[in-house]
């Protein structure tokens, strides 16, 4: 891949989205022209599509350790999170239970849905996380009240990569009889995920995070849990998600997920080695710090804060060197405040502004990692030289925070 400057692109923003795998592309193509039927049609062309849809559903159910009837196709992670939470809230409301527990570091698809419920009279407890971004099952157990209807904890964090003790949290919820939802968007295809092991009642996933197509995802809802519709219309997805199924995307998702899960161990080992080398290489930068848990983190996540610089200019200069990365700085989010995740793990504003996320895929090479290890300190050093904050830190007018 080439950009304008004809510099080879090193793509390390795989938590934003991934390149589709050739397997996924190949799985989609026939469903655009040859097998174009609508699964709701009674004729043979439609019924052929219906069979393929059933197959994809069974594949995904097998990979998640559930039954096909528990799989709902949605437009992606955000829709699945919305529907899971609103459905659990409706179940709770009918029993007079209007308290929900979640964490301070959830994705906005969860946090904004919870805000909406707060306006409808729900009470929300957002659990604090440790400096490494962890919540514990004990914290969840302590927060559960008689009127708690849902616990929603993300499987792995999209920014700092911390992987939560999901099975332990699921066990606590089960024991206390509270519904449990997990946003597994960053986890599926990257670490082992089983709804049985997690004892989850709901789970959200998104295809484009594991080399599948964009605009398609899954909501797993345990059998017997009534869902609230977000989209009304036809009887697709057992009447719980109207709209003609996006068959090409669903086929691409099933193929990508199968591929990712079949190669999970090999890919994890490969990415972990690259990740650890990258962390080691960037740690030599003075006044920098790794964000997230040192061990319990996604195999593809590297996340640093560098004191005295701002993340957006860092990203733009790295892009100039052919490195595509991401940051939790305010300037990249379009708001004045930096990432809520970095603030939740205790990074002060001025440090949170100088963050860098590098999210790998199994396609990255050791050579690319070495190039990044060389490029990032150069850019950080340049930006520090032109930063009044860095000058103040150097001259002792300000104290280093990290």
């Amino acid at each position: 891949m080439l950009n304008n400057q004809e510099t080879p692109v090193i793509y390390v923003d795989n938590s934003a989205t991934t390149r589709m795998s050739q397997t996924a592309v190949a799985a989609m193509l026939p469903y655009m022209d040859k097998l174009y039927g609508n699964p709701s049609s009674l004729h043979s062309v439609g019924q052929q599509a219906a069979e393929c849809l059933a197959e994809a559903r069974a594949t995904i159910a097998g990979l998640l350790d559930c039954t096909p009837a528990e799989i709902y196709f949605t437009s992606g992670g955000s829709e699945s999170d919305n529907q899971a939470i609103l459905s659990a809230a409706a179940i709770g409301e009918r029993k007079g239970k209007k308290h929900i527990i979640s964490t301070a570091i959830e994705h906005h698809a969860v946090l904004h849905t919870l805000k909406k419920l707060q306006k409808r009279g729900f009470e929300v407890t957002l659990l604090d996380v440790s400096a490494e971004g962890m919540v514990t099952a004990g914290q969840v157990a302590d927060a559960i009240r008689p009127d708690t209807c849902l616990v929603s904890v993300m499987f792995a964090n999209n920014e700092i990569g911390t992987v939560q003790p999901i099975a332990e949290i699921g066990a606590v919820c089960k024991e206390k009889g509270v519904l449990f939802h997990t946003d597994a968007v960053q986890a599926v295809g990257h670490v082992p995920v089983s709804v049985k092991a997690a004892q989850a009642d709901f789970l959200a996933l998104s295809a484009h995070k594991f080399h599948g197509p964009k605009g398609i995802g899954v909501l797993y809802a345990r059998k017997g849990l009534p869902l609230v519709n977000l989209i009304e219309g036809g009887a697709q997805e057992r009447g719980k998600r109207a709209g003609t199924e996006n068959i090409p995307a669903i086929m691409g998702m099933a193929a990508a997920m199968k591929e990712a899960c079949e190669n999970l161990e090999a890919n994890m080992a490969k990415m972990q080695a690259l990740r650890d080398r990258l962390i080691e290489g960037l740690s030599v930068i003075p006044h920098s710090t790794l964000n997230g848990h040192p061990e319990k983190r996604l195999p593809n996540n590297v996340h640093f804060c560098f004191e005295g610089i701002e993340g957006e200019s860092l990203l733009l200069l790295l892009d100039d060197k052919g490195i595509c990365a991401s940051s939790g700085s305010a300037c990249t989010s379009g708001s004045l405040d930096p990432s809520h995740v970095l603030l939740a793990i205790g990074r002060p504003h001025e440090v949170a502004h100088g963050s860098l996320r590098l999210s790998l895929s199994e396609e990255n090479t050791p050579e690319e990692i070495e190039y990044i290890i060389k490029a990032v300190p150069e850019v950080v050093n340049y930006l520090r030289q032109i930063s009044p904050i860095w000058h103040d830190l150097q001259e002792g007018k300000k104290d280093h925070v990290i």
Partner: protein
Amino acid sequence: MLYSEKVMDHFKNPRNLGTMDNPDAVGEVGNAKCGDIMRIYLKIDGDIISDVKFITFGCGSAIAASSMATEMIKGKPISEALQLSNKAVVEALDGLPAHKVHCSVLAEEAVKAAVKDYYDKNGISYDAAQFAECEGGCAHCGDHE
């Protein structure tokens, strides 16, 4: 693209970048919490800004706006530098995205802060209204906490 070619040019090749030994005036605005700080150094001969330097902590548009503002006041009389508006900086940069306009406001304020420092250091009297605080016209003003 988020930014115009002009913005990217001034971001990647900032003019008048660096610190200055024995400046006649220094102006610093912004704060670390909000994610941008600009510091402008002036050398003044008579009433002419004979040299100007800057260092900036901030996003691409903050660095580009600082660079452009220094270009626009270099070699100009102080009175003219005081007339520099954030709108003029935005126009010279061929526009900024709406949520980045505050960067141009900071650039205007940094220039004014430096001139004020010069007046204060040299006992030159001035109309305080010239250095009025910002009008809070940015889209995100007041969002912070």
